[in-house]
């Protein structure tokens, strides 16, 4: 049974950009590999940055983003455009990140120091400045789910409802995660406040 029944099923609430994504998914379900290439081009940056900010590891972020797009390809015939494609993609990326955490179980804040990310190689994720590194460390010190919620809210631009959709949590659970995360960040980033600039 194919749940994906074509472009006519695209909800009117989605923007034209989302509708384009939905059309690309239809083409992909029909076996059009060029649609996968187009989806990758449109969303790889946000998937990479989400995976990188969550794991703190550039190589891992690339592996996760690649894996996420392969999963998109494999499940194209079951995709239902009830939400934005990007939210669905974020959910895949988040689940893959959680899988990684489950396997390697680092201590809070025990993430790569990001030194490789400041290399001059133009093909890597760029991240510059002492303040950026300080913020990165503060975010890395958060528990995994708080970190994911903060990254999705502050950097991926998702609403609390969007974060709930991308993580499978309830909105009240997301609110709770965010409040606790921002309380911790307020303390750890106090020295970087506007007064210290």
């Amino acid at each position: 049974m194919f749940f994906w029944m074509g472009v006519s099923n695209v909800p009117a609430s989605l923007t034209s950009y989302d509708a384009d994504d939905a059309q690309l998914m239809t083409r992909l379900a029909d076996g059009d590999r060029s649609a996968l290439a187009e989806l990758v081009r449109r969303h790889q940056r946000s998937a990479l940055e989400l995976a990188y900010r969550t794991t703190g590891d550039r190589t891992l972020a690339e592996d996760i983003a690649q894996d996420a797009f392969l999963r998109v390809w494999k499940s194209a015939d079951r995709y239902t455009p009830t939400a934005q494609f990007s939210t669905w993609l974020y959910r895949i990326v988040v689940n893959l990140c959680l899988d990684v955490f489950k396997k390697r179980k680092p201590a809070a804040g025990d993430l790569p120091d990001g030194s490789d990310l400041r290399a001059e190689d133009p093909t890597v994720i760029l991240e510059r400045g002492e303040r950026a590194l300080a913020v990165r460390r503060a975010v890395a010190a958060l528990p995994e789910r708080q970190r994911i919620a903060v990254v999705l809210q502050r950097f991926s631009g998702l609403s609390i409802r969007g974060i709930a959709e991308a993580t499978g949590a309830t909105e009240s659970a997301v609110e709770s995660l965010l409040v606790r995360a921002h309380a911790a960040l307020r303390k750890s980033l106090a020295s970087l406040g506007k007064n210290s600039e």
Partner: protein
Amino acid sequence: MSFVSLSETSLMRCPRNDVILRLLSGELEPDARRELQDHFEACSACRSAYEDLQASWDVLGDWQVDASAIDLTERVLANAGAAERRQVQRIRLAAYWTVPLRAAALIVLATGLGIGAGHFVPAGKSAAIPEPSAALEDMSEALEWIGLASESATGVPFGLEPDEAPEGGDTP
């Protein structure tokens, strides 16, 4: 992004921190935003909480990450192609082995059933000894039936050939 309406924010009381977070992330409707700002004017505790949250919100913005130089397109397409080829190989392999595997399974099944029914005896093992039927009237008949009779039909005790039969009654 859908906006959160005024009624959802319960502005009659001091707002919870998640409402302030919704204000920072731009999720509140314009009316709710205005009402919150008015509340902050009148409530120094809430204003302080808002300013703290806004400070860390702004500092988070300093963590700029740029992955625009990375292009995964070729890698993803190559991996998709490889996965597809692996799947085709698996299907072909399954089809190739289906007939011989089914035939082997049939032979094993038939042999097993044969052994179970007593038609076949595995090498090095004797046939299973069947239970004597209830129709057998006495023990000697039952022993004879299973080949352990003390005397055979020829009158020779079990284990002796007919020409080895002892002379009747002339023992010293």
